[in-house]
């Protein structure tokens, strides 16, 4: 093999770039391989009608400050247009509820006070979990002193909440989201808006057990001063550009359009990769940021890992339920222009609406009443109201495996989404010049993520912490020498935090692999 590296990072999404940057900074000869033409994966760009738009994520949720500082992203061009974007939820009657850094407005004083209290409490609870995010999750049994220390610290931080609060934490941690929302609030629209943020991207409805933990897990990303709902200047793809610039500046080599076909390994250790074109590249270690199912079941030849391990990997649950609709528009109605310039827009009804859409989606049908998140990045990022605009919509719940086939389901969902837009902002659909809808299965095909699941594995208790993605690979190390897992499928993955890639690189460096 002509070329040889210390580490090959597979996957040029945000976690891959973070890992490559950290490894290169530590002096490793690092090569990053990205299958597609563009970097960023679901946080990158794609073309619609010749215009580059965000491919998937349109906001950055809780990029960890350690990653930002460690890779010096500000110097490499990362700046925020907004760090805590306000959210306005509209119901079909046109009533609006706004959620921002100051709390909830447009609701009764009782609900506003209840949200202020609940948000504080949830952030406190999430803060108790937060220290777990910054390193490999501690082993519960057979661990060393480091693990016992980490568990002790977790116990202490829960204990420090006080007796009543700790009891409350233990009461709600495995509850469904609807229970605590119905207990605390009377406003259906407010409840739906809070449930939206708690559950977006999961295979959980408001009444599914584990919804509160998914919410806390997401909120724990905010501890330590991460921007909660951030829009970088230039959009999410600008984060990718900054990460790529940081990695390159540190000396990492980046190759796009270089899909990996197979990881080369013998019984003990990996030795390199073979690209789809047949080219072989040698490496002492491989850090994979593709989702765990692809990593272990597609890249490795059969029999390299044990049957029990493969069985656990096959059983990882990864069902995406978010459809992404991108629209380009010329002359948007003024109501939409002014709402879009304020921040994020949610078009929702109630908890029951979300529950019913989940029911339909889980059986493969498009729901009767979609919920939608709308962002107009072009307006929020210094754009002018008169110019063309990009409307980015997240629609849920969309079926992971549409019963009626992809084409019919795409059409049904797009028609419903446009009707939803027109009902709130009349005249919107008439202004559309180009559109593209991606179902979960389209995300799966384009970005190689199993089930079209953003999080590379659902963020439910049996797949979190030391169980993520499976117990035998939970600390970034695969049971094969030199193979590391650093995608969102690794702890504390899901969302755009950069931490799985950051921590995985640390594990690799710690092993001197």
């Amino acid at each position, binding site marked *: 093999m002509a070329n040889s590296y210390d580490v090959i990072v597979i996957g040029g999404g945000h976690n891959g770039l973070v890992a490559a940057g950290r490894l290169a900074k530590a002096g490793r000869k690092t090569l990053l391989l990205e299958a597609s033409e563009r970097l960023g994966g679901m946080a990158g760009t794609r073309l619609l009608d010749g215009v580059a738009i965000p491919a998937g994520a349109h906001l950055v949720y809780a990029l960890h400050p350690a990653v930002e500082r460690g890779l010096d992203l500000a110097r490499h061009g990362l700046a925020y247009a907004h760090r805590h974007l306000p959210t306005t939820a509209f119901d079909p009657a046109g009533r609006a509820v706004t959620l921002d850094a100051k709390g909830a407005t447009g609701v009764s004083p009782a609900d506003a006070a209840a949200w202020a209290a609940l948000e504080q409490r949830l952030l406190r609870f999430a803060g108790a979990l937060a220290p777990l995010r910054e390193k490999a999750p501690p082993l519960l049994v057979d661990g060393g002193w480091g693990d016992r220390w980490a568990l002790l610290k977790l116990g202490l931080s829960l204990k420090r909440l006080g007796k009543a609060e700790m009891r409350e934490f233990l009461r709600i941690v495995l509850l469904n989201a609807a229970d605590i929302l119905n207990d605390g609030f009377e406003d259906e629209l407010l409840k739906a808006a809070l449930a939206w943020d708690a559950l977006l991207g999961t295979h959980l409805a408001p009444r599914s057990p584990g919804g509160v933990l998914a919410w806390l897990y997401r909120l724990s990303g905010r501890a330590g001063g991460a921007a909660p709902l951030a829009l970088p200047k230039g959009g999410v793809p600008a984060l990718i550009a900054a990460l790529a610039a940081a990695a390159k500046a540190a000396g990492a080599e980046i190759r796009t359009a270089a899909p990996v076909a197979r990881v080369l390994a013998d*019984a003990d250790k990996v030795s390199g990769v073979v690209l789809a074109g047949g080219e072989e590249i040698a490496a002492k270690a491989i850090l994979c940021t593709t989702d765990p199912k692809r990593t272990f079941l597609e890249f490795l*030849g*059969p029999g390299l890992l*044990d*049957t*029990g391990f493969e*069985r656990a990997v096959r059983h990882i649950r990864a069902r995406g339920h978010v459809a992404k609709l991108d629209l380009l528009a010329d002359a948007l109605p003024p109501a939409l222009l002014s709402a879009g310039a304020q921040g994020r827009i949610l078009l929702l009804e109630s908890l029951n609406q979300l529950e019913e859409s989940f029911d339909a989606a889980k059986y493969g049908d498009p729901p009767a009443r979609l919920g939608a998140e709308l962002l107009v990045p072009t307006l929020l990022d210094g754009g002018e109201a008169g110019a063309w605009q990009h409307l980015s919509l997240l629609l849920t719940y969309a079926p992971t*495996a*549409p019963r009626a086939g992809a084409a019919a389901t795409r059409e049904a969902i797009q028609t419903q989404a446009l009707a939803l837009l027109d009902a709130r902002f009349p005249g919107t659909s008439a202004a559309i010049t180009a559109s593209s809808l991606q179902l979960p299965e389209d995300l799966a095909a384009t970005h190689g993520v199993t089930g079209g699941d953003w999080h590379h594995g659902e963020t439910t208790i049996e797949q979190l912490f030391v169980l993520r993605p499976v117990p035998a690979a939970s600390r970034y190390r695969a049971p094969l020498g030199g193979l590391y897992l650093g995608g969102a499928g690794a702890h504390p993955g899901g969302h755009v935090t950069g931490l799985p890639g950051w921590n995985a690189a640390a594990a690799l460096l710690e092993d001197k692999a």
Partner: protein
Amino acid sequence: MSAPTTTIQYDKDHWRTTLRESPFHARLAPLNIRHNWIGWAGYLSANAYYEESIEYFALRNQATLYDLSPMIKYAFRGPGAEACLNRIVTRDVRKQKPGRVSYSVWCNDAGHVLDDGTIFRFGPEEFRLCCQERHLPWFLDSAQGFDATVEEVTDQVAGLALQGPCSAAILRRLGIAEVERMKPFDLVRVTLDGFALELSRTGFTGDLGYELWVAPGDALALWDRLMVAGADYGLRPMGSNALNMARLEGGFIMPKVEFVPAAQALRQRGRSPFELAQERQVDFAKGPFNGRRALLAEQAAGSRHILVPLELEGHKIVAGSLAYHRQKKEIGFLTSAMWSPTVKRAIAFASLKRPYGDTVKDDLWVEVYVQKELKWDKVMAKATVVGRPFFDPPRKKATPPGDI
């Protein structure tokens, strides 16, 4: 992409038959004059037909027939069958030529033994694995990614073990010429009076012996021919009690006796091949296989247990008895034990905590409780670690096999 819908037709009345009858049942039932049946893998199986000691001595001096049909059997077929099996078991299947049988163990990820059994290689792409426990989900999961199919064929193959010093003579009388050149663990396909017969020189008795496999429809014809050919040799049916005596003398371990199959073991109570005296079954040089990483780690760190063959003072001995070092420190227990009529000694397998039985082999004792007319006595019997098997007659391996 919608989920495929399959309809499986179950026999709704299956529960009315609690234990099924083996293909040989029509002949076995009248012979089992004490109705001494047990259940084995869902089939009726005889503990003894008349008296286990008569059957045991028939095995060691004449020949016996044992109904193997309930043995769990899996067919591995296809271009990837060899690689698939090689991933499952700890030994190197590539070294096994067509027409050979091998003994194997297989492990889970933790390196704990799931089961042991025999692999029959009929051709480059055709194998059959025989064992005690059911493993279809494990084998199907293990076969993913390999160009191989796995099918349970327990009900499709009827089997008889023809064992004992006269077994070769009986096969000669049936006119099976291949007997002359078959070495231990050889496997042939022959035709006997128009029906297909698979014949292997294998067994679980530590004696000269063969196993015969036919389609269930040919089972009774095979039985009748063997009983006719064996009449002058004192051939008689044998049950599981006598077999269990013979297998201990032959040095064979039994699942659920010498070890808990790992799939049924909780809390790390599984045993690795190193803890079951199966070190020679583990081939680290062959490439990846299930449990390899765990077994390498165990080899480096040292195993916790060891299985040793023991000879004991006296003649009263019971499985389950506790073992001691210097009559004081409890170090393990006997998994199997008996007075061996052939070796004329009390013999046993003991599962001990290392280093006892490994580097510390002196001053080992076994505590035996014996009851004499409602009065219990406790004796300490001195134990000596010996080699395996306890009983190893030259006739077992002689080729061509001896005639009588």
